[in-house]
């Protein structure tokens, strides 16, 4: 089938060139997703979704036309190609567009596709869900479990007028449970999840149990005083903050002056204890691939090196406009999405002390188990709720917090990091330690 997909993509490219495209590329995908949903601790829904489609991107005088269709036929590809060229002609010329990238050799990234995973049926996911429900109820009989399990697999192909012709197969499976435990008017909730590209990396047991144990810990939440305090971001909160900061380094926003990191390449934007690397070639990594969404070979690199922003993230448009080489960060969310920019696997370099040791050095502060701490990509400012966390008192996590917000900026949060934990959460390709951040403004009712 992969050969067929590539044939269809190449037919689209030929048709777009015949219609007058200066440059063009075509992307096809054929995916299947099977999932089982849990509602109120019962299996509720099973679905199987097969999705096929293609998109063609054509340039005429730099103007871009983009057309998608939800079918995979040579005829459909040609029609989409002609349409993309018509749209490109209707667009304004863009003098900043230079060209699409040339083909490049890349080492294959192994184990992105697992035959066993792609062969799973709904019965397997029903079993995983029943296990999760039982585990949660073994922690608390009255636990209410929501969530589900499933897997997706598929093939995709990319061809371009510059000679790029690549295809890949990939699979992933995961399970996620959100547990609710109520005691009178008090409610504790939390979630746990796991996802992997091969069965041997997937943790099926204890996901429901972990979610329930954390939900129990969230009972009895209370406000804290409004003050400036140190924060310890657990791995999930760390992922939110670092992911958001790296997104602000996408060159499109930077070049357009709508990113708070514009003009900051080479600057110290974070404490020197913070190093964030990108490792796109990790075997079976969740965000691994040898090529980016435009067929550019990806390579490992430091994005933040001892606090210094080392590079912006480019696709071919932003790279050639800037006069630099593409960095392999072009992304496609699927056949219906235009090409954007995003990083692959992020790995934060661990520090020297454990999370528990970092907490033990705090007299009064907040441990953030989870919060969407995402500075606004334009302003760099953040004002949001610390959704799940604990008050730190005398070096230990105490009562869970309620209705507690932070007001800060991305730069303040990054520069005030005074330690990275030595222990970390590891997902395939990702390394997520905890971060300790000094002196951040919080507001609450206490």
């Amino acid at each position, binding site marked *: 089938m992969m050969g067929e997909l590539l044939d269809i993509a190449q037919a689209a490219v030929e048709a777009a060139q015949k219609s007058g495209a200066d440059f063009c590329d075509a992307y096809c995908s054929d995916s299947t997703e099977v999932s089982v949903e849990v509602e109120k601790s019962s299996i509720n829904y099973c679905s199987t979704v097969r999705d096929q489609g293609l998109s063609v991107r054509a340039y005429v005088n730099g103007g871009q036309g983009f057309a998608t269709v939800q079918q995979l036929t040579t005829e459909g590809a040609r029609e989409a190609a002609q*349409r993309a060229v018509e749209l490109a002609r209707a667009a304004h010329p863009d003098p900043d567009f230079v060209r699409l990238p040339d083909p490049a050799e890349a080492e294959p990234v192994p184990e992105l596709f697992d035959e066993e995973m792609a062969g799973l049926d709904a019965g397997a996911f029903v079993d995983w869900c029943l296990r999760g429900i039982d585990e949660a109820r073994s922690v608390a009989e009255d636990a209410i479990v929501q969530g589900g399990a499933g897997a997706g697999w598929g093939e995709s192909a990319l061809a371009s007028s510059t000679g790029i012709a690549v295809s890949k197969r990939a699979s992933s499976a995961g399970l996620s449970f959100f547990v609710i435990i109520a005691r009178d008017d008090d409610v504790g909730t939390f979630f746990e999840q796991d996802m992997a590209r091969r069965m041997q990396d997937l943790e099926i047991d204890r996901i429901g149990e972990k979610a329930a144990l954390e939900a129990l810990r969230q009972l009895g939440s209370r406000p804290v005083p409004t003050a400036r305090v140190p924060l310890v971001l657990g791995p999930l909160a760390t992922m939110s903050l670092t992911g958001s900061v790296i997104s602000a380094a996408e060159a499109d926003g930077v070049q357009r002056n709508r990113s708070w990191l514009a003009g900051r390449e080479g600057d110290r934007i974070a404490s020197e204890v913070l190093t964030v690397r990108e490792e796109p070639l990790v075997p079976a990594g969740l965000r691994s691939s040898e090529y980016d969404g435009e067929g550019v070979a990806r390579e490992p690199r430091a994005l933040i090196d001892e606090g210094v922003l080392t590079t912006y993230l480019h696709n071919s448009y932003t790279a050639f406009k800037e006069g630099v080489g593409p960095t392999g960060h072009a992304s496609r969310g699927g056949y219906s999405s235009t090409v954007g920019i995003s990083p692959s696997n992020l790995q934060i370099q661990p520090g020297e002390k454990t999370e528990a040791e970092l907490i033990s050095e705090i007299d009064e502060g907040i441990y953030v188990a989870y919060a969407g701490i995402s500075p606004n990509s334009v302003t760099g400012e953040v004002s949001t709720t610390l959704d799940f966390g604990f008050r730190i008192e005398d070096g230990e996590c105490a009562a869970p917090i309620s209705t507690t917000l932070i007001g800060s900026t991305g730069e303040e949060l990054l520069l005030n990091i005074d330690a990275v934990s030595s222990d970390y959460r590891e997902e395939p390709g990702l390394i997520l330690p905890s971060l300790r951040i000094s002196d951040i403004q919080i507001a609450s009712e206490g």
Partner: protein
Amino acid sequence: MRELIEDILSDAKRRGASFADLRVTDGEGTSIAVEDGQADKVSSASRSGAGLRVLVDGAWGFAPTNTVTAAELRRCLDDALSMAKAASGHITEPGVVAEVEPVEATIESEAEIDPREIPLADRVQRIFEIEQVARERDDRIVNTRANYADGVGRLIIANTFGTFIEQEATRCSARLSTTAQSGEIRQAANESEARPGGYEIIDAIDPGEWAADVADRALALLDAVPAPAGTFDIIIDPRVCGLLAHEAFGHNAEADAVWAGESILAGREGEQVCSELVTIADDPTLEGLNGSFRYDHEGVPAQRHDIIRDGVLVGYLHSLETAARMGVEPNGCARAQDHQNEPIVRMSNTFIDGGDTTLEEIIADTEEGLLMKGGYWGYVFTARGQFTCNVENAWEIKDGKVGQHFRNASFAGLTLGMLSRVDAVGSEVKFDLGGTCGKGGQGMPVDAGGPFLRIRDVVVGGQQQTGSEQ
């Protein structure tokens, strides 16, 4: 097509389904992106397909396809039945649906001007002109982005009760984002005009007013200072009020969350849960709003749903399934993003009803607090009833007068509690929050609104400690 759809549904029943429904879609859309004076990206999408759902022995199975042929629909039926059978035997809370009278209807598009009749070059020029007004407003405007989108589609909703509805729908939208910069400070403002209807929506935009306002809001924020942190009396505008109604109560009133034990409002029907000044409703029948529709995606006629009346919880938003589970009549709240997703309970146009005072009176009556305008985003954890609303602007209120302009503020609270502290409600209701609500991985057009209202003792997350305590 009708014969094929009815054949598939009959087959579903014959093969053991107690209920089945099929949605068939066919549509196309165009979008145009302008940034910094160049309309250099034009896109089109063609979408079609069908989603088949079956209920067998209390288990739901769902299978969609992008290719609407007899063979593919039969493959979907096989897959959906197989999915339901995989789940049956493991169900502790069997799925059910409320029986409803079949509906036969044909709904024509409400568009006055079909956007496809407007030459593409004219659509490009129009959105370019809108962006141009914002771009040329001031030298400190350093980035402008505008997006035009239209979509024309046909949706067939059919089920084993005999419902068969064909509806044509057209949507048009314009969105604008501006970034202003002064020194190291960058600030942004966004606006959108989106609702069911044709190109008349775009024609009605006055760029000199609409786009200039977005630029002016970003420019004004350059002179604002970071908001204080602490507990304040807040006065919120219709946009923030709509955000609050949507996040704090709307999601909690969705009956799938209520039934699943995932809503703080579960089991509280008839209880006083807000100040008696507060009435909240959700109404898809309001004309010309982003969340308006005639039939939901299970074929139930749209209707107004009262959620809170004079502070008392009076009702929830239902699908066929939640209505059956809770023993009430379905009220038409199930919608699906597209044929690849099943219908789930969604809000439409959610609002807090008007009271009997004015903004001026509320401000004059406030000794110390914050006036908040422009809802950016929000979210809620329904099981705990904890929500967050992020706003574009805040102003200090002192001794009944508006003072210092603040930026970067959010407020948060618990659903059961915060709206009990509402003590002043403006009389004029505005809907000003047309956008997309995300739930269960599905995006759905919604609107929200309300009057100006005042809430006492609300936690605000700002950057400044100074002045944080009252």
